[in-house]
């Protein structure tokens, strides 16, 4: 079975990837770290993403071992600088 997630890129990561959003199809059971590895394995420009970025899953920060589900929103969060 396959799931489909939306990967979102912000700020410096958006500059790296060259787009703000992409759809990614993955095997069911893929974790956050699995998605990151998958993307980095696609080669340039994705290989320039960090191996272990901060990730928000459906708008909440999660660890690398969180499991993705169909329709999830997975945001790559560069170091934040609000205020």
């Amino acid at each position: 079975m396959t799931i489909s997630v939306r990967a979102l890129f912000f700020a410096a990561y958006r500059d790296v990837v060259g787009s703000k959003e992409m759809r990614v199809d993955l095997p069911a059971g893929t974790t956050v770290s699995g998605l990151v590895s998958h993307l980095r394995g696609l080669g340039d420009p994705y290989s320039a993403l960090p191996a272990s970025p901060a990730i928000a899953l459906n708008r909440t920060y999660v660890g690398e071992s969180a499991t993705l589900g169909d329709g999830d929103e997975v945001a790559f969060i560069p170091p934040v600088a609000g205020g």
Partner: protein
Amino acid sequence: MHARITADPIDPAAVLGRVGSERDGAALLFVGVVRNHDEGRAVAGMRYDTYEEMAADVLEAIAREAAERGTGADVAVVHRYGELSVGDVSVAIAVASPHRAESFDASRYVIEEIKKRLPVWKKERYVGGEAQWKDGVVPARPVEAEGS
């Protein structure tokens, strides 16, 4: 409690006006402003990007946490995004509480948590035209259960 992320200019006095009641003896308004220098470089302005939907949630969570510290405080916070010039207000935090210590504590909590976890990024524009993303803070990850 009031928390908002917005592209509109912020009126700090209006944010202050959102907090306080007759039980409160102290009110504190923090205003963050784009300044004309950073680490020795002359700054012309700042672009704030955000993950707006998540930022709204995080800002509200921060305000709620601040309000529930100590014996309770009334909290309002507004954070701006978009293109800002030197002197523009990027964030306003208003707190009111019966005694001053809680207002200082809650205000400081809100700004420090914003810096640690609000999904906002800033690209500094220098006088002369160059621009770069400002170094930030890696948000803490939730602790994961063993073996999960």
